[in-house]
């Protein structure tokens, strides 16, 4: 299986690569559109600010490539948020794969949310064998509200989307690569899609 992690200069890519290595898979880091398009599975990571990450995607013309991919794609954290249609973070236009805006936490809760929270109402093969209420590691200041494409939810002030799915596109707000065995099982499930 050819597994590609999109390398566009915005993300803790090393950790994701190592997480797959612990599972026995070698991931290739790439910003080459041909190599990404030819992969069996694609990981779309992201850490940092939405605006600058989107600029970096555009600089490598990846903003047009990603929505056209037909193999399973997993957006992680900011990666998932960039797959939505708009983010309040820097008024950033997203890739519009998921038809939902990204909002900032603003109900008096501490921001960023940092730490282990649980995921519920798991409804996707991505969560095969994962128990309801399992703990995963979240680090974020912006969130995706519940929508038709929600496949897992979590609560921090509002109840929000912990994961999304549309066709071959999956997104997780949390960091599976840092979420202990639960995260590893979710990554295994993604590889098995």
């Amino acid at each position, binding site marked *: 299986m050819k597994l590609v992690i999109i390398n566009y200069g915005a993300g803790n890519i090393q950790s994701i690569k190592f997480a797959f290595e612990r599972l026995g898979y070698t991931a290739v880091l790439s910003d080459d559109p041909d190599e990404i398009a030819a992969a069996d599975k694609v990981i779309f990571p992201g*850490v940092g600010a939405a605006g600058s990450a989107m600029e970096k995607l555009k600089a490598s013309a990846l903003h047009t490539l990603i929505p056209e991919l037909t193999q399973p794609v997993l957006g992680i954290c900011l990666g998932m948020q960039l797959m939505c249609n708009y983010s309040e973070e820097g008024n950033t236009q997203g890739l519009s794969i998921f038809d939902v805006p990204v909002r900032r936490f603003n109900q008096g809760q*501490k921001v960023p949310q940092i730490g282990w929270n649980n995921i519920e109402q798991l409804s996707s093969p991505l969560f095969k064998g994962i128990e309801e209420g399992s703990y995963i590691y979240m680090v974020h200041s912006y969130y995706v509200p519940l929508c038709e494409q929600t496949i897992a939810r979590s609560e921090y002030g509002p109840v929000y989307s912990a994961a999304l799915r549309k066709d071959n596109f999956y997104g997780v707000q949390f*960091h599976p690569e840092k979420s202990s065995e639960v995260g590893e099982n979710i990554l295994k499930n993604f590889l098995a899609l």
Partner: protein
Amino acid sequence: MLTKRIIPCLDIKNGRTVKGINFVDLKDAGDPVELAAAYAREGADELVFLDISATEERRKTLAELVLKVAEKVNIPFTVGGGISSVEDVDILLQNGADKISINSSAVKNPDLINKLADKFGSQCVVVAIDAKQVNGKWKVHLVGGKVPTDIDLFEWAAEVEQRGAGEILFTSMDHDGTKDGFANEALSRLSVSLNIPIIASGGAGNIDHFADTFTTGKADAALAASVFHFKEIGIHELKSSLKAKGIPVRI
């Protein structure tokens, strides 16, 4: 529900853990990677590595260590100690650190906090603050608590939040090493007045101290070293006990 975090802290010198560590089930208790993996298996929520080496090669040694930890450990970790530039941080994050912690360098050059938050995001910028009470006022201290300043803890904490810090790691020098409990009054004041997570450090001696710092101290996370290293408190035992007291923890 977001849970309270338990964070063992490992002191690192020249790539090895220091301070007596009593982990009988490890082949090499001085190996930070092996120790980190053991803590992750026991249920630690995060780890902090504090580099206290003073050699010229420290940057290279630390970067190599971070890469090895990231390879083996499946929970988040923070790296601190002697970090003073955007370049330092860039290398550590590229090698797989999730967060970095700055302390004296932030006091000397507060703009560093803004620069790091802008470039890497607030979520990976932890500002560590060491403070103790001088004539009844909490004053920031530098160089591991050795050098006093006239800076007020609460004013400085508000400034680091405003400059873009994502978390504050507050160590009370008055409580550190006493095993008498955390500085809950100051912690609670920080936690209520600021809108970013606060990590309590200094004073852990028993399980009740952790419970108190989460309830009375309103801390979001608690960090400790020797009580974990010497197995005076097991991580699993601690979290089970906190859960029984109604404190949300990941088990």
